[in-house]
């Protein structure tokens, strides 16, 4: 038993006597460079050559910087610049690295040495002394004895960080009902994304798909992306007989043109892939699949809610318009979504 093992329980470890005692470190194998000065000199030259190569690499990298000045619109300069600086740096690093390791492996001693470890645990004497110090400090300060001081201090220490948390209160505004409304209003025209040109019902042929935003969004100066992140819509025209509409939502579509929120109800990716034959909408991020013909209910994947439908109609000029905002929140589900 060694010192380390004396003090600690071995737990469930078994006590099986080893067949042979520990034979000790293997004898050192002499290398060519240990016994022949000629080999050692060869190694020395190799190492020096590697360090030399490193200098060449650094020079290549510097040359790469100056040899390919940026030319507006010409990407070959960027490409060459990046390639030669990168390769030059790589060569200069690898030269040093290989040189140093080769040096260590050929010319520095490779006989293993052994060093004793010390148990992490302090000696009993040290621990006793440490305990003494703690007791002394406790006595001198009256920490244990003066309960009133101790408890009020705990209280103070518990309270003082709270302002540091409260101070972050203005990181973002109060959410309110911002998650439940979008830019769509009664009469807002449906416009093409990203040009913002309003769409006529006659532009939408059967089988076609349009990425749609509310008219006016693309001209917004502020909060354009925030509004777009909620208001993006996918517009599809299918054969009206393929649509299996709720009776109470029958007037939400127009001659087989339906508009659904493009924001996935799983975690909010744009549901951008439409499969014409099956009328399926697929989210490319996590593959939630929605059946457009059946009110965009989830038929596969991790989403749980159907994509909200935007009720649409056609105005006097033939443009597609929204009848109202979405009647339910778009995008990922959250705690008070139904409130």
């Amino acid at each position, binding site marked *: 038993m*060694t010192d*380390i093992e004396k003090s600690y329980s071995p*737990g*469930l*470890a*078994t006590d*099986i*006597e*080893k*067949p*042979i*005692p*520990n*034979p*000790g470190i*293997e004898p050192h194998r002499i290398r060519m460079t240990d016994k022949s000065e000629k080999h050692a000199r060869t190694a020395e030259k190799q190492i020096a050559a590697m360090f030399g190569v490193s200098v060449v690499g650094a020079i290549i990298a510097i040359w790469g910087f100056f040899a390919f000045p940026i030319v507006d619109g010409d990407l070959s300069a*960027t490409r060459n610049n*990046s*390639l030669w*600086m*990168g*390769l030059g*740096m*790589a*060569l200069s*690093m*690898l030269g*040093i*690295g290989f040189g*140093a390791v080769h*040096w260590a492996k050929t010319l520095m001693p*490779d006989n293993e040495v*052994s060093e*004793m*470890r010390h148990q*992490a645990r302090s000696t009993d004497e040290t621990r006793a002394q440490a305990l003494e110090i703690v007791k002394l400090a406790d006595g001198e300060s009256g920490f244990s004895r003066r309960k009133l001081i101790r408890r009020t201090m705990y209280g103070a220490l518990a309270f003082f960080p709270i302002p540091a948390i409260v101070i972050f209160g203005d*990181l*973002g*505004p109060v*959410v309110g009902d911002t998650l439940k409304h979008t830019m769509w209003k009664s009469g807002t025209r449906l416009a093409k994304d*990203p040009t913002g040109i309003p769409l006529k019902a006659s532009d939408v042929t059967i089988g076609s798909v349009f990425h749609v935003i509310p008219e006016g969004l693309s001209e917004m100066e502020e*909060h354009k*992306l*925030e509004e*777009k*992140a909620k208001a993006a819509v996918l517009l599809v025209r299918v054969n009206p007989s393929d649509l299996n509409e709720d009776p109470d939502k029958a007037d939400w579509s127009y001659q087989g043109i339906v508009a659904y929120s493009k924001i996935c109800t*799983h*975690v*909010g*990716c744009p549901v951008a892939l439409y499969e014409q034959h099956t009328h399926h909408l697929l989210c*490319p991020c996590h593959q939630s699949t929605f059946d457009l013909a059946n009110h965009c209910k989830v038929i596969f*994947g*991790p989403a*749980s809610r159907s994509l909200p439908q935007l009720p649409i109609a056609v105005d006097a000029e033939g443009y597609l318009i929204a009848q109202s905002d979405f009647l339910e929140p778009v995008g*990922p*589900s959250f*705690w*008070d979504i*139904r*409130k």
Partner: protein
Amino acid sequence: MTNTTEKKPGFVGGAANYLDERLSIGTVLKGFGRKVFPDHWSFMLGEVALYSFVILVLSGTFLTFFYQPSMAEVTYNGSYAPLKGAEMSIAYASSLDISFDIRGGLIMRQIHHWAALLFVAAAGLHMLRVFFTGAFRKPRELNWVVGFLLFLMGMGAGFTGYSLPDDLLSGNGLRIIDGMIKGIPVIGPAFSSGFFGGAFPGTEVVARLYSLHIMILPALIIVLIGVHLMMVIIHKHTHYSGPGRTDDNVVGYPLMPVYVAKAGGFFFLVFGVVAAISATFTINPIWNYGPYDPSPVSAGTQPDWYIGWLDGALRLAPSGWDISIFDYVIPMGVMVPLIVSLLFLGLVAAYPFIENWVTKDKREHHVLDRPRNAPTRTAIGAAGVTFYAVLWAGASTDLIATNFQMSLNQVLVAMQIMLLAGPVIAYWVAKRACIALQNKDREMVLHGRETGRIVRLPHGEYIEVHENVDKYELWKLIDYKDYQPVIARPDANGKTTIGNRIRSAVSKIYFEDRIAPVSKAEYELAHADHVPEAVTEKPKSKRKSINA
């Protein structure tokens, strides 16, 4: 101190003297100069992680000189023709400028990104090495936790950096994070508003991610690396079992000069390889994705590899498990992946304490286990790796389906099944493989290795000559720790506590079908007719075996 009457010291001597008189570097050098480090390729994984971090700091500092973390809109007018005139954030525009209008900018961006991928990969492999060799055992449990935190920080630093260019791909990544945050019960929506400074995507988040990415996370990583390495110094490095290696010593090469050359040289090798990869392989071509816009997305989007397992968890989550409490909703499509991944991480962090609760082995362990000699631990590790790997592969369901022309739905269902069945299969296969290897080792110890030489004895019998392994090889095969399952027994009050029963059951799972190391009696019996040289020779070391 040198005597003033002696010959005047040279520059190095003078400088050393100057520093020693002020910083007592003599004591430091005396203490550390000949510190012994063991040699093994697997010990270099942690080094790769450390050096990648150094590369990240160097290349990242360069990038901060040019990058601007602002989401204000500008019209691009840089060298990249296809995007000229496009509206984009300053963050994206400055990332494009780094790539196209600043010489050396692109190579630095690439080095930074490749080094980040390597950093997390090396840290992960290093963790696996520590796990499978049992290096986390006493006294290193706390260092395992520090390393675990480093791995988390690495993932966090990676993700915050990934989002900074504000391109379409990273913006979609942030959108996913936003969806997940919003799904957290009660605080989700407010938390999301706080993170994005209002509605997604807002105009704040890039600047906030930037201060996390270049200040808070690196500072935490540096502190944790400091603690991590300090503990390595306190504990001294572990070594693999082998002749002369015990729990009381450390066998290897001295820091000066061998390790200064090897480890120092290795830093340059890692940097050189990262530079070579970065010069020749494009990573994250943000100019192809375009600026962030919440509407478009391209098919086959994927995060950087280390976030893949979380994305896979999101994909494999079951649909329609949402819980309603009165009028409130808990979206389980988000919560199941969150809870499962947090549980997984929790188990990883807690493993050293779980294993120690089973073995109750309070000794210090400095000789590493060969994975085969801890079959149950290895099997648990294999199960964990499989679980992680299936989640990770789950982030590629769409690419697997399109590249191999399979049904996306079937690929996903297969992944869901694999997620549950894979770890069980991996556990069983790994455990059996370990036990088979242990049996092979036993055979080798008792009967030596097969030479393939067939000899006919005078009386006509044919035998294959076995050759005994030499004592150094032999020691490697026999020097391992072995544990027995414990039987739940009543305590002093005559009661068998539930804790005891559970521990007894778990210890059975761990050690019931163990292969015990060859004992002296078995060994002598097997070698009774032909006593090998290894036993007769006097051992060189007088130290008694450590594994009594």
